[in-house]
């Protein structure tokens, strides 16, 4: 074997080791540590506050499973009601996601102004790995939308330049009313206290709108990728944030996305079984 061949073998070996090292680093920083560190914590900081929701944790030691299940159902109902009651303090539009009854609704001061059925939903395994009583406590305070992304604009704008005179006004082609019903509706709400709600239209997107779907998905992947690379470059592990995926009617998805204000309140009830 010549010297150059020997060098090449070494280069290959070193490259292989580096690649393996990078892979191990990637897996550790993006999967192992985030999942290990993940913990749903009670949002309550002031333990002496008497108004906070404290589910009776004696249930934890109840041996009878049927009673325990009933207790969990009740605790989740209590938590959801507390969250909704808290939201009535605001006079803006809020969102309630009741996965126990598969209902997504817009509410204002306790009045449901719009509701739709969640056709299907998928929740993170992280919830099943958390004590239901702590989960109920976590859900008893409404979430706030921090960031949102969507495949449609929040406010669809049709630009019109003002005519200079009546002749120009007469010659201006009559603008068609806004019609974006064909546009696919996918949106993502990133909530404070680390929860992500992904809504997608139940209907398969039309052929003409596949490009928009791909663009949205690419955009989402790009955001996630940038976040991961940013963490990895700073030698800090990424964060595991549980997600809920909900499929709803396309029309309803558009209505809900456009209706909720910035920093909207969100109440979530998780299924207990």
């Amino acid at each position, binding site marked *: 074997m010549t010297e150059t061949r020997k060098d090449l073998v070494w280069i290959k070996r070193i490259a292989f080791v580096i690649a393996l090292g990078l892979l191990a680093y990637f897996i550790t920083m993006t*999967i192992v540590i985030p999942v290990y560190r993940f913990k749903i914590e009670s949002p309550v900081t002031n333990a002496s506050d008497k108004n906070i929701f404290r589910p009776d944790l004696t249930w934890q030691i109840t041996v009878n499973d049927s009673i325990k299940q009933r*207790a969990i159902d009740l605790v989740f109902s*209590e938590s959801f009601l507390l969250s909704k009651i808290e939201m009535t303090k605001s006079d803006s539009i809020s969102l309630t996601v009741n996965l126990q009854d598969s209902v997504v609704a817009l509410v204002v001061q306790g009045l449901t102004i*719009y509701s739709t059925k969640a056709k299907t939903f998928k929740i993170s395994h992280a919830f099943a790995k958390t004590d239901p009583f702590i989960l109920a406590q976590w859900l008893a305070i409404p979430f706030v939308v921090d960031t949102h992304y969507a495949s449609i604009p929040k406010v669809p704008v049709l630009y019109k330049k003002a005519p200079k005179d009546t002749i120009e006004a007469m010659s201006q082609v009559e603008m068609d009313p806004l019609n974006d019903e064909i546009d696919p509706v996918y949106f993502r709400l990133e909530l404070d206290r680390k929860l992500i709600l992904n809504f997608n239209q139940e209907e398969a997107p039309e052929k003409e709108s596949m490009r928009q779907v791909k663009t949205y998905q690419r955009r989402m992947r790009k955001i996630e990728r940038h976040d991961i690379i940013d963490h990895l470059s700073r030698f800090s592990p990424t964060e595991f944030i549980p997600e809920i995926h909900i499929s709803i009617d396309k029309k309803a998805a558009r*209505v809900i996305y456009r209706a909720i204000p910035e920093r909207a309140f969100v109440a979530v009830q998780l299924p207990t079984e």
Partner: protein
Amino acid sequence: MEYISNLKLWLLNLPGFFKRKGGQESAERTFPGKAVLLPVLVYVSVPVIFYLLWVSMFTALPFMQEAVVKFKPTLTYPEFASQSNPGPSELLFLQENRVKKLDKIYARFSNRQPYLIVNTSDNTFNLFNNGKLVREGLCSTGSFVLLDAGGEQKWMFETPKGMMRIQGKTESPVWRKPDWAFIEEGLPVPKHHNSFERYEYGVLGDYALSIGNGYLIHGTLYQRLLGMPVTHGCVRLGDADLEKVFQTLKVGSKVYIF
């Protein structure tokens, strides 16, 4: 280094390889052979495979995280353990009572007063009285047109969302045209706010209900456009619907627009 020199040789012979004339130069003479092609394949495919792996790892990351979470033991919080220990049936009873009480509290928020719900996405409305739906139908809401008259002069024709209240009710309303109405038609804007040119009769239908900030619920001459987003921000209703809404809602009644 040997590969690179082989590759160089092959690249130099490449034109000859593709421009064979009458079999003068055979493929065998210029074809670089396995010795060069294999490394080329390796050098090209390795980065491609690496890139694909990299991209797929990012894409698969949420699924991988979820898969790992599945194996995580359930978290318990012993520090929250209760001091008291009443029997399970007693606890269940207490818990049920708490939920019932909260249900009652929440039910108090349901509105028994007349109110109107306007859906700006579908351009529909629902009128409620005593908690019952009394009328539903089509309406027209903001067109989302951004009228640009240059400089600071811009108007967005959007219906405001949220909870509003009826602030006033008018029969046979007269429209006092704002500046944008003239600009949109290419007409000069009258200097005075109360100039007679600003007043237009009969265009708002028989009734108008004010919801604040100059926005109205009124009738329309363009009934065929009901169900479409065509207004300058007001809510337009059909004649019969407007009459019912006018009769049902009082000053102070709530209007929910989303």
